[in-house]
């Protein structure tokens, strides 16, 4: 009755904003930094991208500007936590609040106008959706198969050791944070440019927080992020499709499903770590702790 292919095509579009944001945050966290400002960076990207797309008439330029804007505002967080060694949790939350307020203020002139339509890519799917899917193996390859990825993971696992080996902890983290900001910016811009076609205050509506949850769910791996984004996106799309088809399914039950799945996965992960020495990649060892090269 419900065509699985159409559900699948819907779900990969629906999960794109959180996929971008979560992939970015994955790299940030693998470098040992916990940036809770994802929502703030997404909304910044949503506004900057929309403004650029509207002004230039080119949606792709909008995404480029969104990436730059996300990276720029993330550097504020980087300055606070990497230079002034401020608490990462507090700085991240501040970044979210700051981003939401800033976007609301600068967004006033863009209310009520419409973005240019996105050209449709292969299989009637937006080009940016394809880009998101391509970013998954790219991030995986970078983290696991390149020297710089190894250094980044080293910095995240044990910044003292990485520093002792002569790697620049601060610079590595700065680059990771900027990358995370750019990805979050693109994710946010997807909502304003490709999904809604308008700018509205608070339009990311909590997507950044879901992205943060997905990074934990993914057990800090790129394929896990994709699985998490698809699970969250998929369950949402499926329950809406079931409703639209008039199937009597308790909506509340389906809305609960992604969170239930997260709990099950977390239990499975911790069980595996308890009973097996050779555990997969879990939380980076230095996650959320500041590094100061005194010694």
């Amino acid at each position, binding site marked *: 009755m419900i*065509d699985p292919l*159409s*559900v699948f095509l*819907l779900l990969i*579009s*629906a999960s794109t*904003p959180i996929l971008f944001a979560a992939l970015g945050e994955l790299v940030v966290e693998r470098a040992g930094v916990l940036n809770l400002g994802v929502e703030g960076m997404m909304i910044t990207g949503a506004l900057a991208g929309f403004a650029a797309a509207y002004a230039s008439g080119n949606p792709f330029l909008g995404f480029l500007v969104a990436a730059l804007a996300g990276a720029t505002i993330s550097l504020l967080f980087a300055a606070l936590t990497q230079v002034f060694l401020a608490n990462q949790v507090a700085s991240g939350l501040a970044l979210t609040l700051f981003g939401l307020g800033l976007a*609301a203020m600068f*967004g*006033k002139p863009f*209310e*009520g*106008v*419409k973005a240019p*339509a996105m050209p*449709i890519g292969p299989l009637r799917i937006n080009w940016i959706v394809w880009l998101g899917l391509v970013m998954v193996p790219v991030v995986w390859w970078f983290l696991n198969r390149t020297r710089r990825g190894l250094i980044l993971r080293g910095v995240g696992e044990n910044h003292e050791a990485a520093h002792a080996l002569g790697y620049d902890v601060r610079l590595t983290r700065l680059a990771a944070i900027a990358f995370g900001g750019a990805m979050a910016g693109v994710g946010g811009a997807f*909502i304003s440019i490709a*999904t*809604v*076609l*308008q700018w*509205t*205050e*608070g*339009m*990311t*509506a909590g*997507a950044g927080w879901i992205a943060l949850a997905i990074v934990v769910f993914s057990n800090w791996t790129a394929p896990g992020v994709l699985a998490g984004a698809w699970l969250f996106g998929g369950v*949402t*799309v499926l329950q*809406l*499709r079931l*409703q*639209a*088809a*008039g199937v*009597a399914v*308790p*909506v*509340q039950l389906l*809305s609960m499903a992604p969170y239930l799945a997260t709990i099950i996965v977390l239990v499975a992960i911790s069980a595996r770590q308890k009973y097996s020495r050779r555990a997969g990649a879990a939380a980076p060892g230095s996650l959320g702790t500041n590094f100061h090269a005194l010694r």
Partner: protein
Amino acid sequence: MLRRTLLATASAALMALAAPAMAQDEPLKIGFIYVGPVGDGGWTYQHDQGRLAIEAEYGDRVETTFIESVPEGADAERALTQLALAGNDIIFATSFGFMDPVMNVAAKFPDIKFEHATGYKRAENVATYDARFYEGRAVIGTIAGRMTETNKIGYIGSFPIPEVIQGINSSFIHARKVNPEVEMRVVWAYSWFDPAKEAEAASALLAEGVDVILQHTDSTAPLAQAQQAGAIGFGQASDMAAFAPSPRVASIIDDWSPYYIKRVGAMLDGTWESGASWAGIGDGEVVIGEITEAVPAEVKAEAEALRDAIGAGEYHPFTGPLNKADGTAWLAEGETAKDEDLQSMNFYVEGITAQIPQ
């Protein structure tokens, strides 16, 4: 307890100060609390337009202030108290969730008048007001029934509360009246405003073959999705004119200005009284936005005739014979629905096969 006493004393002192001041033709002070930002382009934006209309109407005789993005709950009580202590004479609270905070604060400030939108609790100094959005739904339902080619129309619901169920029933009844083949698909987004979720809800409906989307949520995301799929939709709360002439072929606009102007006028003449207002098209509180050229002229004329009949009070959108979805009789031939029944509406009318989530 001590704090409350202190507050009462402070307010009494303020009242004492305010009373003689009022006599010397000080402007009437009017406060608003909004649930969202003024720039939401929908619900709160329309209330703020009402506030500006008060200023335009009464000029120097009034002074308005507002607090935006007030969360529903305990924080609303703080915001209301702040407005009360600032010497406002009348305070408008513009969201359902401000109901209990309004009642609590109103009890502490008996000399200040409160107006609460969409609620049902009243007191000597608390009035309520709401709009008959279902009247507008009847008009756009007619357009939807005429315009659909697949005979499937979709409705994006926010929460399964009486106001939204009235809207679903009203649009379905009138779509079916002009097109007996029409089917209604309902999707609940469980949010008033979540663009991403609304977009997904719209694409789910479109994938089911729906080609006309009605929305009870506030963002333009469903219109954007409809446009990509070649379907049509309607503006909600505000005009959403950026999507005209298609996919936005018409809209339901909440216009609070007539009510606000009337109530402030009553304050100025000293004739304000508590009460419950539920006004619709006839009072200019529910406005049908321009029906665009994407709609054939005869359909436009039909919709406008229905709008005018409702506005003139000649026709009630819920007129029998009507049965409930479970087949039991609801309204007999020629009988119209009572307001109390509408305000607690928790059933679909016959012909809608979906279930209301419990």
